[in-house]
């Protein structure tokens, strides 16, 4: 393992011509920009060497792929809804009346060299981008890497996730084909479902009755200007905070809350990361070269009357679509002269609450634990059983909504009735998270127990010996100190005790907090203590 200390090489006595030139250039730049300070700071930023720490980078690199391919697409895309007759080279749409946006998307696909590849790179990279963000967030959540001082970066990261979804959705709506129009129709329905002001909001958004003639140019401005600008700004802040807060790391011998062990950016990590960028880009281009994505030529121009079976949003909007599919019927009623569409409001409210809970989770947990310390050591998920269980419940909830977006495909491909699929998923939406919560928590506790057992008594070696007295015993292989460290170095929280404050009173807030704290930390396995380890070592 490379550590920080030995990364700088001592310069050779007589510099070669090349390095003298480099020195002169560096000096020239430094005297005018004082860049050496930043380079010193950044160049020695340490990256831990666990694969799960690379997921954010995957998101970053696919974002770069999106920016590059997207720039290419803007050269040829016409964001207007002016009606034209298609005269490109795709025979099944020849002469059909369509918007200029759709016609230019078809031209990009069929008549501009490399256009289809770029469109597919752009779209596949977008899917990978959001998927990598999702996985990255799960890593951060289950490792407890959102704890102080990183709560704000969690919020920024989640904002990036939302922005990425917004970018995805606006992009999905631009080609103005049947699929994108149907997606917008659902947005229109959601807007109109807002009580009292819904219809006005929809008219404002679409510039009149849906679909109108302004939505594509408006979404285009959002898609290529406003949203990317906010996204890049938030991304910059995200990375800046990452540098300021430094990376977290897994517990191991030699790793403390005060240091970071890993590879410095310069030169090792930069080389690895640069290569990794090209690998990610390569994977995207490879997929885009061989696999169709969003075959807009199949869908035809948007027209409010037709729809296609199997119309779904891209995967990251699926959970919203799934929520709409799972909502039980009969929730719409008229009251005080207004229609209250709870069939649309209920899913929106539930999803809204879910999203807010995820954003503020770091603050909730900090309040419950009352822990004001900084944490730079990554927690193994098993060592925070309640958090892991909450995460598992959240993932299950999301997954059920997500699966519901494909309910028709599930029904046809597994020869089920769509009603059975819907009803099963409705039940799972409620029961699934509860089951997942308890199962995950029990698994965590069991793993903690196993760790404790191994820390105290070593691994079972499978070798049986017979003692002189006739007793049989299995020989346990002792752990070395490095192995043991991993198993015992975690914080053992205890439920908060309710204690009177300075004025001798117990506030109701304290009581609530104690209840939550008991829920969080009641079931726990303490790590093996020094005393236990020392007495345990004599056993075998």
């Amino acid at each position, binding site marked *: *393992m490379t550590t920080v200390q030995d990364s700088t090489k001592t310069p050779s006595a007589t510099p070669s011509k090349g390095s003298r030139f480099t020195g002169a250039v560096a000096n020239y730049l430094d005297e005018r920009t004082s860049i050496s300070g930043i380079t010193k700071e950044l160049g020695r930023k340490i990256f831990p060497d*666990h*694969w799960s*720490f*690379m*997921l954010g980078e*995957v998101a970053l690199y696919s974002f770069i792929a999106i920016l590059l391919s997207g720039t290419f697409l803007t050269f040829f895309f016409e964001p207007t809804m002016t009606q034209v007759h298609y005269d490109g080279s795709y*025979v*099944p*749409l*020849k*002469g*059909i009346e369509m918007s200029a946006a759709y016609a230019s998307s078809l031209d990009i*696909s069929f008549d501009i060299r490399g256009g*289809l590849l770029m469109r*597919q790179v752009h779209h596949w990279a977008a*899917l*990978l981008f959001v*998927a*990598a963000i999702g*996985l990255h967030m799960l890593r951060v959540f289950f490792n407890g890497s959102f704890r102080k001082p990183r709560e704000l970066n969690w919020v920024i990261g989640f904002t990036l996730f939302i922005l990425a979804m917004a970018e995805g959705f606006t992009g999905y709506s631009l080609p103005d084909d*049947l*699929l994108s129009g149907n997606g917008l129709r659902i947005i229109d329905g959601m807007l109109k479902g807002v009580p009292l002001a819904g219809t006005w909001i929809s008219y404002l958004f679409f510039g009149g009755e849906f679909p109108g003639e302004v939505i594509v140019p408006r979404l285009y401005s959002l898609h290529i200007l406003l949203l990317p600008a906010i996204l890049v700004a938030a991304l910059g802040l995200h990375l800046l905070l990452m540098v300021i807060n430094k990376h977290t790391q897994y517990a191991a011998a030699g790793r403390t809350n005060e240091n970071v062990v890993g590879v410095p950016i310069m030169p090792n990590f930069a080389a*690895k990361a640069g290569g*990794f960028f090209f690998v*990610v880009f390569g*994977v995207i281009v490879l*997929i885009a070269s061989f*696999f*169709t*994505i*969003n*075959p807009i*030529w*199949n*869908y*035809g121009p948007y*027209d409010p*009357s*037709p*729809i*296609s*079976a*199997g*119309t*779904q*949003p*891209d*995967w990251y909007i*699926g959970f919203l679509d799934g929520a709409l599919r799972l909502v039980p019927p009969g929730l719409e009623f008229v009251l005080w002269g207004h229609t209250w569409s709870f069939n649309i409001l209920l899913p929106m409210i539930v999803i809204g609450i879910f999203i807010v809970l995820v954003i503020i989770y770091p603050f909730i947990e900090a309040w419950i634990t009352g822990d004001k310390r900084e944490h730079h050591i990554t927690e193994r998920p098993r060592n925070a059983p309640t958090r892991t269980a909450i995460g598992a419940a959240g993932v299950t909830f999301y997954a059920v909504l997500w699966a519901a*977006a*494909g309910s*028709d*495909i599930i*029904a*046809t491909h597994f*020869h089920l*009735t*769509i*009603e059975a699929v819907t009803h099963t998923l409705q039940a799972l939406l409620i029961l699934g998270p509860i089951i997942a919560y308890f199962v995950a928590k029990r698994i965590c506790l069991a793993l903690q127990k196993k760790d404790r057992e191994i820390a105290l008594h070593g691994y079972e070696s499978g070798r049986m010996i017979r003692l002189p007295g006739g007793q049989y015993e299995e020989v346990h292989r002792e752990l070395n100190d490095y192995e043991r460290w991993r198993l015992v170095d975690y914080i053992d929280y205890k439920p908060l005790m309710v204690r009177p404050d300075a004025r001798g009173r117990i506030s109701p807030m304290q009581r609530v907090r104690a209840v939550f704290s008991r829920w969080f930390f009641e079931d726990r396995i303490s790590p093996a203590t020094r005393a236990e380890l020392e007495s345990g070592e004599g056993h075998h």
Partner: protein
Amino acid sequence: MRTHSSTDARRRQAGRRHPLASIALITIGLLSTGGAYALLTTTASADAPAASQASISEGQKIFASNCATCHGMSASGTADGPSLYGVGAASVDFQMGTGRMPLAYQGPQGEQKPPQFTQEQIDAVAMYIASLAPGPGIPDQKWLNGDGNIAKGGEVFRINCAMCHNVAGAGGALTEGKFAPSLSGVEARHVYEAMVTGPQNMPVFNDTNLTPQDKADIISFLKFQQDNASPGGVDLGSLGPVSEGLFIWIFGLGAVIGVTIWITARPN
């Protein structure tokens, strides 16, 4: 709740097959035949193969031994199968030619399987059924060549067919376990016959609704889709964003994670 709805469904099914209902239907059919006579003779029955008495009785024999259990000895229907008066030769050719009839089992809908009879046998049964009452005949070959207007066919397909069969003809789900099958590999003749007869859960698209030329255009569009692979590469079943999402999670992210594990692995 469920038992209630299933008994409801049973009552509905039984109601549909009530003998009196069949008779009423036949009466209505006969009454409307007068009006529809001109249309039927010009478009449907005109080009039907000459029905010889020999092949009709051959068809009747095949019918009696294979179909009559459900459709009745006189093809007037039983509780287990509808009357075949007026369904026409097109219906027989479609149902038996795609293997849907005879049914393997009573289910939400008859499913495609290898045909159980030769084309001669099917033709004979078709002639027998057509001889009972007038109905849509076997389509003229001139509509089936796939030389119609592909763009027009695509437009008509998207408006009339895509909501069940999907824009790429990949099929889709209907209620209660029924489904619109995939159209890839279906013969032009069967596509045409399905449109005029409305088999299983499909609505009828008669000649005033979609003219024979519209149907020929649709067939040409489907033929184009079948003959030309997706310009973008492997089409992942043309199922839309669901298969794309699965693909990127399993193969895209899978490949990338494999690489992350590789580059962070320590040398042994």
